């Protein structure tokens, strides 16, 4: 009987040791427009391309100055009439959810945390404009600097043209994202493509210290807009092209994605942008609603 018990125990140990998966690199599952079976590529209509700029705001629900930052960003969006795309990244200490109470909702994302670290965000609210490195090791700037920085680049001719077509099935919440990038000049650099999901009008608590904007110090029914929800192809995206690409080349990438049931699809949009793999600076951006 004793030996039976010991054998049984050794058997359990054996099973447990066997229950161990060692993963070899590469660890990341490569994406890159290979979902065309599940998502047949539609025809893209002809269009006229204009330069678009991405403003990525770093914010947090416990940041009392952040409603003012969002106000500035929204005013700028109106000013530039669709040429400015906004994204709010909840990251850092002000975005930490409380264990309980009003501020327990977690707005943070894995991609947002990565960006917050990589771009060495030193304050909230701050923003990156097209991820331009404004000084050595400094990408983010205070709201007073946003407008002059955008003014300096928004009038440039677009070097790349981007279009997004989204096809959403409500029952399965399957989303097919098709992104076309057209090279409007000869290019000789490595280009990356990133695709993020944002959501508008998430009603939740926000700290606020400006009574002209809303209740202070706690704004219960604050509308959080352009909130980064996820990165479809990881925080750093996929390689779009390496090295030389002649003018007028077009590349279409397709992604299959299932929208989180917690998110209101009617308020969700896809933000796609292309950037220089070396400098990380964004070359062109585009936005389109999920539905």
């Amino acid at each position, binding site marked *: 009987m*004793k030996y039976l*018990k*010991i054998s049984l*125990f050794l058997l*359990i*140990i054996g*099973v*447990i*040791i066997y*229950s*161990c*998966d*060692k*993963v070899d*690199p*590469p*660890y*990341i*599952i490569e*994406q890159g427009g290979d979902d065309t079976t599940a998502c047949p590529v539609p025809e893209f209509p002809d269009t006229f391309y204009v330069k678009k700029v991405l403003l990525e705001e770093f914010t947090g629900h416990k940041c009392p100055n952040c409603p003012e930052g969002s106000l500035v960003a929204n005013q700028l969006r109106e000013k530039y009439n669709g040429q400015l795309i906004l994204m709010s990244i909840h990251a*850092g*200490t002000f975005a*930490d959810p*409380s*264990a*309980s*109470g*009003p501020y*327990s909702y977690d707005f943070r994302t*894995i991609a947002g*945390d*990565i960006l917050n670290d*990589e771009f060495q965000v*030193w304050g909230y609210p701050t923003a990156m404009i097209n991820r331009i490195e404004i000084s050595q090791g400094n990408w983010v700037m205070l709201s007073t600097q946003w407008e002059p920085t955008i003014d300096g680049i928004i009038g440039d001719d677009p070097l790349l043209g981007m279009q997004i077509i989204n096809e959403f099935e409500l029952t399965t919440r399957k989303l097919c994202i098709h992104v076309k990038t057209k090279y409007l000049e000869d290019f000789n650099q490595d280009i990356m493509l990133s695709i993020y999901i944002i959501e508008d009008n998430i009603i939740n608590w926000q700290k606020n210290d400006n009574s002209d904007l809303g209740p202070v*110090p*706690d704004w219960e029914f604050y509308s959080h807009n352009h909130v980064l929800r*996820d990165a479809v*192809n*990881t*925080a750093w995206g996929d390689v779009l092209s390496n090295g030389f690409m002649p003018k007028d080349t077009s590349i279409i990438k397709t992604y299959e994605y*299932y929208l989180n049931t917690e998110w209101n699809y009617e308020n969700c949009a896809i933000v796609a942008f292309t950037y220089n793999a070396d400098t990380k600076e964004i070359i062109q951006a585009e936005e389109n609603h999920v539905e």
Partner: protein
Amino acid sequence: MKKIDLSVLLIVLFSVFPFSIKAQNFLDGGQVHGNFQIDAQYYEPDDKIGADTIPEKFLMNAFGNIIYTNGDFTAGFRYELYLNPLEGFDKRLEGNGIPYRFASYKKDKFEITVGNFYDQFGSGLIFRAYEEWNLGVDNSVDGIRVKISPFKGVTFKGIYGKQRYFWDKSPGIVRGADADFFLNDIFKKWQEKKTKITIGGSFVSVYQPDDPGLKLHLPLNVAAFAGRFNISHGKVNFSGEYAYKINDPDQINNFIYKNGEALLLTASYSQKGLGVLLAVKRIDNMSYKSNRLENSYALDVNFLPPLTKQHTYSMAAMYPYATQPNGEMGLQAQVVYTIPKKSKLGGKYGTTIAVNFSVVNSINKQKINDTIPIDEYGTLGYKSDFFKLGDTKYFEDFNIEITKKISKKWKLIASYLNIIYNIDVVEGHPGEEMVHANIGILDLTYKFTPKKSLRLEYQQLFTKQDKGDWLAFMLEFTIAPKWFFSVMDQYNYGNPDNNKQLHYYTISAGYTKKANRIALSYGRQRQGIICVGGVCREVPASNGLTLTISSSF
């Protein structure tokens, strides 16, 4: 959620109704015991201290444990209520019901438990299921546990189940086995030896289904193993445990694939009037959870013991250390010496001096190559030299405590602490300066009669960082063993913001009779963190009336 499982009903019915003759016998000689606790608070908004308005005004956490034992059989359950959870507790606790129920049978060298159980392998480096009411932590396993002792000195343990996750269960399945060998019992010729040796080993594996949203090739089965020893020889004791975990990308480590390691070594010496302890540890990527997406304290499969002294005085506990599972190297040394009675220095009643020092640093981390940043998502993360300290200090605490009974009427405890606290890392306040704090505490008790005493606590904290200097004062009158009354104030007179130089006053009273205790307090609670065993939770500022009732039978 909130529903009683069938198994609970069966346990309860089986315990209450005599189904058969056998069941009647089963009830003969049975004993029921248990305990209850109610923690409730009435909240008042207080803008000055940043206490939010609580819509419910009144919040309550409560539990009741009922345990039935009859010979070899034990069964029990715990009812819990969080309506709604007290401020500072995880709001996912909201609800009421029976999250914990079990039945256990033990005969000779065999024990089996079904339902929820708490247990740990060794020091817990790869498995510890425990609950800590004050933190709102409960990671009990709901499953099956078997213990067998086939020979004297040999114990095997096997566990299988899912962990409690508030009112739900973990997505991952936890499987584990542990073996413990007390060599002096196993080998006859060692039985009489003064040197006692125990060795042990354990294995744990967690299974969690794939998560396509992460776009990673995930290990679905994450295993960890550990080996340990304990050698004692008279007054000297030496113990250690080493644990290893294979690739376990999760939210805490930013989904890196590096293996995890932990080493804990402790040496101690104790004799009458003298105790010496020296402990070292190294933790490297050892967060181990039954849900790779969980980033709170919930669903920890393992426990990483802290090597820092847990302080009880309010100012000393201002900057408690929280274990950093992604990597830390620490050391703790402690000497407790009692100067004998009737000696020159010891005085009539003796004097006890306790000196404690602990320090925790980051571990050395190097890039795996030139292009991949440290801790990059979906990579090996970093390389680390096992014996090399990292550049960042997380925590340092030097403290000395002198306890002296001056006369029959007077008793004094005097303490000094010097704490260095990396608030950026421990509390996640990026960019905030390292806190250097000096703390002095005087605790003086005067006994009017053997039953009536008055205790005065005076504490002062000096720091140029964080919220600046504090002063705390408490007066407590006790009529043993039933009554206590106290008034307390913590005053943040050194806050760099003049508007925040506030008083946090509290008055309290309590009554204890046998195993029943009721306590009331009214006042302000400052914002801070509380830690038990290196696991911490944030406590928001609050103001109001707190009621605690506890009872056991």
